[in-house]
């Protein structure tokens, strides 16, 4: 009877020892569903949330890259717009036709430069083409004889993509080249709401300079170019605001990941100090059981019979 009892006790202590040793080695109190089903459920849910937050941060990083690419494009178009406004102001009655023609040639080059900037690509997509970004955003048509720009046509659309930066919260960094729908993201070059239409205004300035029509320049072009400049300033400001918004969202996601990490740790981690103490206690009990069992097993009536 005693041997059976001893074997049972040793088996129980041995099991306990193994379990505690496993907890100490992995640092986890819960590893399999049977260890603590409720905690398992909570930890799985928390880990799913953590991974989703990690993905939002990845999305934010990608959007920040796109925003930076946009910013570079907008800035270089702004330099064109600034120079064009300057030319429009300089082109008054005091200038000779030859000088006006020189200005016209410069404006032609400015248009080409602006179109090139507006056709910037990022990872194979045209940045300012809206969602029809597999082809160049703008196409320039030049007169083969005079070399002047006759038209710039937009091949994209006014739609932009939104991406999630938090649960049920999306952000958009795309800027379409042209938006004449009256709603949505303002177009970079042309927007029906604020009257911006940079390329057409530049072409008009170019043509007026070629024709020597300084009155038209003074009455129309300067005002038009001013609208374009305001639009571009708006775009730059908007870009800055979006980048700031993305940084905030990223910081929030990062903080949330940290606090979820703490919660996961609280649920699943073993208290190492407590585990080691209990392991030590169990080992001592095991040794004591072995020693005392061995002593008792060795004793028998037969030792005392002659």
């Amino acid at each position: 009877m005693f041997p059976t009892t001893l074997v049972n006790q040793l088996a129980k202590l041995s099991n306990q020892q193994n379990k505690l040793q496993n907890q100490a080695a992995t640092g986890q109190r819960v590893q399999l569903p049977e260890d603590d089903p409720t905690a398992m459920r909570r930890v799985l849910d928390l880990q799913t949330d953590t991974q989703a937050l990690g993905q939002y941060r990845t999305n934010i990083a990608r959007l920040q890259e796109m925003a930076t690419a946009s910013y570079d494009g907008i800035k270089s178009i702004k330099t064109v717009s600034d120079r064009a406004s300057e030319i429009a102001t300089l082109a008054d009655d005091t200038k000779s036709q030859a000088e006006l023609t020189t200005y016209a040639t410069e404006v032609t080059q400015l248009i080409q430069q602006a179109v090139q900037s507006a056709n910037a690509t990022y990872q194979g997509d045209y940045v300012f083409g809206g969602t029809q970004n597999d082809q160049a955003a703008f196409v320039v048509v030049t007169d083969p004889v005079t070399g002047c720009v006759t038209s710039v046509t937009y091949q994209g659309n006014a739609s932009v993509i939104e991406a999630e930066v938090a649960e049920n919260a999306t952000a958009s960094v795309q800027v379409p080249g042209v938006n004449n729908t009256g709603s949505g993201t303002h177009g970079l070059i042309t927007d029906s709401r604020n009257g911006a239409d940079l390329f057409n205004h530049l072409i008009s300035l170019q043509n007026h300079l070629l024709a020597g029509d300084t009155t038209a320049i003074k009455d129309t072009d300067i005002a038009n170019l001013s609208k374009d400049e305001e639009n571009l300033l708006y775009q730059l400001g908007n870009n800055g605001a979006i980048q700031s918004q993305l940084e905030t969202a990223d910081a929030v996601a990062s903080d949330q990941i940290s606090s979820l990490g703490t919660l996961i740790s609280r649920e699943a981690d073993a208290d190492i100090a407590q585990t080691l103490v209990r392991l030590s206690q169990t080992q001592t009990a095991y040794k004591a059981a072995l020693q005392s069992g061995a002593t008792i097993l060795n004793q028998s009536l037969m030792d005392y019979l002659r």
Partner: protein
Amino acid sequence: MLGLFGTLGLAQRSLSTQQQGVEVAGHNLANVSNSDYTRQRIIVQTGQTVPSTIGPQGTGSVVVGIAQLRSALVDRQIQDETSVGGFLDAQQQALQYAQANLGQEIDTTGSDSTSTSGQSGLAQGLSDLFNAFQSLSTDPTSLAERQVVLMKSLSLTQQFNQTSQRLDTLRTSLNDSVESDASSINTILSEVAKLNDQIINTETGNAGSANDLRDTRQSKLNELAELVKIDTVEQDNGAVNISIGGVLMVSDKTVLDQIETYDAGGGHILVRSQSTGQAITPTSGQLAGTIDARDGALASLQADLDLLATQLISEVNAIHTTGYNLSGTNGANFFTGTDAGDITVNATLLNDPSLIQASGASDAVGDNTTALALAQLANTSFASLGNQTFSERYNQTVAQLGQELSSTNSQITNQETVMKALQQQHDSVSGVSLDEEMTDLMKYQRAYEASARLISVLDAMLETVVNLKR
């Protein structure tokens, strides 16, 4: 008065009594490590008295029988507890296999902001799928992102397939276990019937009881009880009648009925009486535990995984078919298949990532409406999933399995405590104690010496009497 010869006879009978005592003590000692053995004792009574002038005089001792020290109550309780133990052990084993096949564990070393690992199994697969759709939504035209989506979804479908297959294999092996248990039950029933026959033959018309045969039979009954809950009734002739689930299986030395397995439809192997065809639903024992685990926790786990896969297929396809691929066409499914066993990614998409329909407009390849909608499925609750998201529903399934197993584990711990207590009671009544047997041995040895001394004394007295006349 007995007289000298009478007393000699008394001494000789006493020698015989002590010798039988030693034999039985020796038999007990020989069986000290036999767990099925019940210790025996000789029943010694005084011999028949003879009338004498001074009143009835005793004629020494006589062994009237060899008794087993067993408690029928403890035996019955141990039998019932063995059934309970068998039931719980079978359930625990089946559930542990199911948990292992599901392969879901947590690893907290990976859950920080720089690492996206930390889960494993299907939980990781589901997270990866929806995160891949998220990445696609930020860059819908990228072939690299599309390739990632396809790889992650293929990995998830393969996990579904493998898990489903493993659970099917487990189900098949549980069915095999039911069949083998039924066969074992039938074998043991025959053995008990034979033992009944032997016991009847030994005890009918003869003195005493067939102690060792009864020990063997009780151990067979315990073996049977571990497999299935039995009801036993001891008859007057020493035989034990056995019923399983109310159906009489063994009566005296005849096996009246046997257990057979049958397919109740849908791969449910159940048991019934072979002669009447009446279904038997055992409530305890290994057989019942296996059937319960198979048709309860395992079936519900498989059903949950199938539901998850079916819903995933239908919800993802519903959104995907409305989107447009890089060529501006739509209508293709993302997943093919019907449940966890055959869910897979559409082969045409696997061959050409550009065919993933991420855009919401046929003429704008840069649009991501469909990809975004697919990504947002992660946070959508579905009524068919109990108003939970895919991940939440899966996590609930895992927790449910864990709960079943955890509760079985604690029941087993409790049952083991009860069993140990019963075993100790049994051992204290029926177990052989070396010290006690040695003491008895000494007692009988000394008594034998005393009786031998009595014979020597009588011998001397007889010699004196004989030598009275020279």
